[in-house]
């Protein structure tokens, strides 16, 4: 559904050197990015601020012309077939609005029916579904400028979906949403994906969104893709260590067993770090149990957040 090969986007930025002279510096916001997304996939596109996520999304939606590389979305070349593509995709830029600021939310929705030439019955159905799922009924007749950020964002999302797009590009769609609205949006997106097989490319800084919605993750940093694979495999690739937490019957000194080392002690509770490939967890538990008497034990997986933080910091391979 989405094919990207060797994609690059450079920006010219002017830097002051000396009093009058300016130097032109060409900076690559997206640098040789390649990936493919199949129909019906839901992909999380993450990376630190300034990594090039929004720039990529703009190229995929035909708004920015790539400096180099080739790309197709739904079989179309975005910049050459922008209008045709726009009919088939839905786009939300979290920090922008496509709604009519001074008019009631409803007016923007009605216009979209004419803009996308949607049959009025289909429009009705789709709108009702959005209104129900995103709980818009309370402010359909309120001018957009009077909406709260979270209300407006739900309106934006509905606006991007009314023409039943095949592909959705969401650039920080959950920005400014409270926990309840966020959950609603996630459920709604999950349902869209499940029931209609919509392909979704989602940019977010909220890892909860990723964990709830995306099986596949693309991580970009400084314009380059540094990870492309299953969310589950990310931990294994970047964080091979696991932690065994044991509660002893009586507090004692650090347990010494082969294949693990104690990293923390708090009264009767001890944390043992082990490499998941070198040490078998079951064996380790058996060895520890042979040493000391246990009340309880758990094995902790590293949080996805910790893993990604370390990747952003460049602390991993």
């Amino acid at each position: 559904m989405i094919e990207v090969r060797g994609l690059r986007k450079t920006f010219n930025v002017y830097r002051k050197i000396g009093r009058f002279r300016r130097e032109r510096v060409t900076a690559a916001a997206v640098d040789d990015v390649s990936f493919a997304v199949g129909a019906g996939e839901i992909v999380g596109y993450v990376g630190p601020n300034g990594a090039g996520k929004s720039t990529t999304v703009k190229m995929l939606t035909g708004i920015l012309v790539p400096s180099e590389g080739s790309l197709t979305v739904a079989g179309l070349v975005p910049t050459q077939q922008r209008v045709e593509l726009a009919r088939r995709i839905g786009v939300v830029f979290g920090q922008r609005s496509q709604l009519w600021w001074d008019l009631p939310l409803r007016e923007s929705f009605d216009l979209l029916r004419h803009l996308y030439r949607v049959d009025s019955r289909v429009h009705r159905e789709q709108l009702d579904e959005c209104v129900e799922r995103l709980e818009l009924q309370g402010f359909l007749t309120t001018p957009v400028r009077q909406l709260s950020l979270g209300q407006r964002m739900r309106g934006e999302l509905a606006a991007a979906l009314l023409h039943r797009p095949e592909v959705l590009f969401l650039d920080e769609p959950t920005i400014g949403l409270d926990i309840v609205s966020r959950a609603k949006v996630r459920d709604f997106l999950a349902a869209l994906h499940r029931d209609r097989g919509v392909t979704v490319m989602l940019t977010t800084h909220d890892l909860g969104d990723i964990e709830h919605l995306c099986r596949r993750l693309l991580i970009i940093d400084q314009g380059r893709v540094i990870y492309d694979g299953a969310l589950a495999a990310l931990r294994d690739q970047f964080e091979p260590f696991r932690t065994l937490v044991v509660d002893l019957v009586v507090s004692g000194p650090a347990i010494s067993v082969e294949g693990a080392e104690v990293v923390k002690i708090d009264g009767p509770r001890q944390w043992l770090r082990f490499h998941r490939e070198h040490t078998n967890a079951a064996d380790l538990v058996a060895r520890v149990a042979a040493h000391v008497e246990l009340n309880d034990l758990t094995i902790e997986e590293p949080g996805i957040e910790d893993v990604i933080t370390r990747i952003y910091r460049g602390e991993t391979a």
Partner: protein
Amino acid sequence: MRLFWELARREFRRYTTYRAATAAGLFTNTVFGFLRGAVMIAALRASSQGSIGGYNMSEAMSYTWLTQSMLMVVAVWGWNDIALRVLNGDIATDLARPVHFQMWWLARDFGRAWYQVLARGIVPVVTGLLVFDLALPASWWRWFAFALSVVLAVAASFGLRFVMNLLVFWTMDWRGLSSTHNALMSVFSGMVLPVAFFPHWMAVSFRSLPWYQALQAPIDVFLGKGSLVQVLMIQFVWVFAMLAVGQALLVAAQRRLVVQGG
């Protein structure tokens, strides 16, 4: 066509939400009508023949009040809706729509213009009619030609404004473009002085420039100055020329387009 209408309607409605601004603007327009009228009367009285550039007193009054009425309709002092969106990056959402960008804005501009006809156009002209002796078209078809010419003036002015707004892609600064636009408009459009007040050769060349088409052209049709057919033809040609320039600029802008912000 349906979309064009829906867009115009929404832009019209959008403007109706700015009531206080409309009232204040209307008041100012009318007050300035009296001021400019007084200056015009003084100038005509002082001239030896009692007319300037072929304008007698009632024609000069018509000119004054018509320009006050049309000022907002053809947005003489420009408008920056597109430029602002380029500068803050909202242009991204405009380009993500399956619609011809220029047509989108043209439709909206007709909605805006119609609102200004009703909200800002009627009162100054009626005031002028009540207080002064205005020269009026003598036949129904001249009224009709005037209406047509106003529509063309809105389109021509839109063409100009569209181009000025798109230039912000290159300059990344609206103020310079805006003052350039205003300077060109005040000289060439007939906003400050009727084009006919300039020396003959200047007036002739002004009439073939795009700014004239946006304001003075319909007034010339109204007053019956010059050949009606010729005025309308030149307006027509300029509307298409300006829209074509705007479209070419848009294509160029999109090629080197830099959307601001993340």
